[in-house]
């Protein structure tokens, strides 16, 4: 049993600006924990979490693998989130290198085929297109959930790059909900990028039917 990261340093005022870990976060932690032995055996050297928010997930990855086993690199478009991610790493004794940027911008050319574990818990809630766009442009907490058409507007932008990013035995964990048309998404990634995928965990939480999908090269 790997303990859930200590988030006691984050206060209500932090959660005014940064997404507070919720059922989707915990499902992702559970999925990573189920894969813990496989992940350790891979000896990842570069773990990248996109949209790291509170930093809970990357701290948890660090607890699974060990603080000095991998580089834990994170990005978030919301600078408050970058700061929380960094603080959560410190609180849990996991060095996290947090970068404020959109998705993988500024990193992409240098991390091609270099990412061993890629993680994205995206804004997956279906909204109007304009709402998702404004949320990303606003670079604030709304960007943590507003997902545009089918909730896929932001996810789709990262999916374009996943195959470029993954190392030869790299894997990608994505959180999705039923409204994201998961089987279509899986089929598209197989046909366009030759990436295999598997739903590793799913759970109903209130109105959301949450999934964690794991992609890897076939």
């Amino acid at each position, binding site marked *: 049993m790997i303990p859930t990261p200590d988030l006691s340093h984050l206060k209500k005022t932090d959660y005014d600006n940064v997404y507070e870990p919720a059922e989707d976060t915990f499902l992702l932690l559970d999925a990573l924990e189920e894969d813990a032995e496989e992940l350790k055996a891979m000896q990842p050297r*570069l773990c990248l979490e996109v949209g790291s928010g509170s930093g809970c997930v990357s701290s948890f990855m660090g607890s699974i693998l*060990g603080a*000095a086993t991998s580089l834990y690199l994170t990005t978030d478009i919301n600078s408050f989130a*970058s700061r929380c991610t960094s603080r959560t790493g410190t609180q849990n004794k996991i*060095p996290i290198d947090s970068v*404020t940027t959109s998705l993988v*911008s*500024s990193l992409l050319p*240098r991390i091609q085929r*270099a990412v061993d574990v890629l993680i994205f818990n995206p804004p997956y809630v279906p909204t109007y297109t304009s709402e998702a766009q404004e949320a990303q442009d606003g670079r604030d907490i709304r960007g943590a959930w507003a997902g545009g058409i089918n909730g896929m507007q932001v996810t789709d932008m990262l999916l374009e790059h996943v195959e470029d990013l993954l190392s030869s035995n790299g894997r990608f964990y994505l959180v999705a909900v039923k409204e994201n048309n998961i089987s279509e998404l899986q089929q598209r990634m197989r046909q366009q990028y030759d990436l295999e995928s598997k739903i590793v965990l799913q759970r109903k939480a209130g109105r959301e039917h949450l999934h964690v999908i794991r992609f890897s090269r076939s």
Partner: protein
Amino acid sequence: MVRLITHNLLACHAKGCTTNNFPLQFKDVSIELREAEFNPEFLKGFMPRIEWKALVDAARQLGDTTLPSEMPEMVDDEFLKNLHHALLEVHVEEGAMVCPNCNHVYPVSNGIPNMLLAEHEIA
């Protein structure tokens, strides 16, 4: 944290800036040294992903001259300890990183680089 391991992965991504946009140059930086756990296996595993010249130049810019100009073929313990220090223990806390091509300035605050671009600068 902007450690040299992360600096080694960041390139300018402003609109139209596609050549000579790496590595970013440090400007007016304050640094802190913080001890990190030494793991030679991690260093050996990460070495193929490092742009060596960029690392050596950045380390020298911050006053660390222990790394050889060429990545050695044989690694010994002394080399790995120097690499460990340069990559993982030097933290750029405040200042900026400047693109050598288009001079775009990316600020660093509380150890976090802000790579966001204004709307008209996005490619």
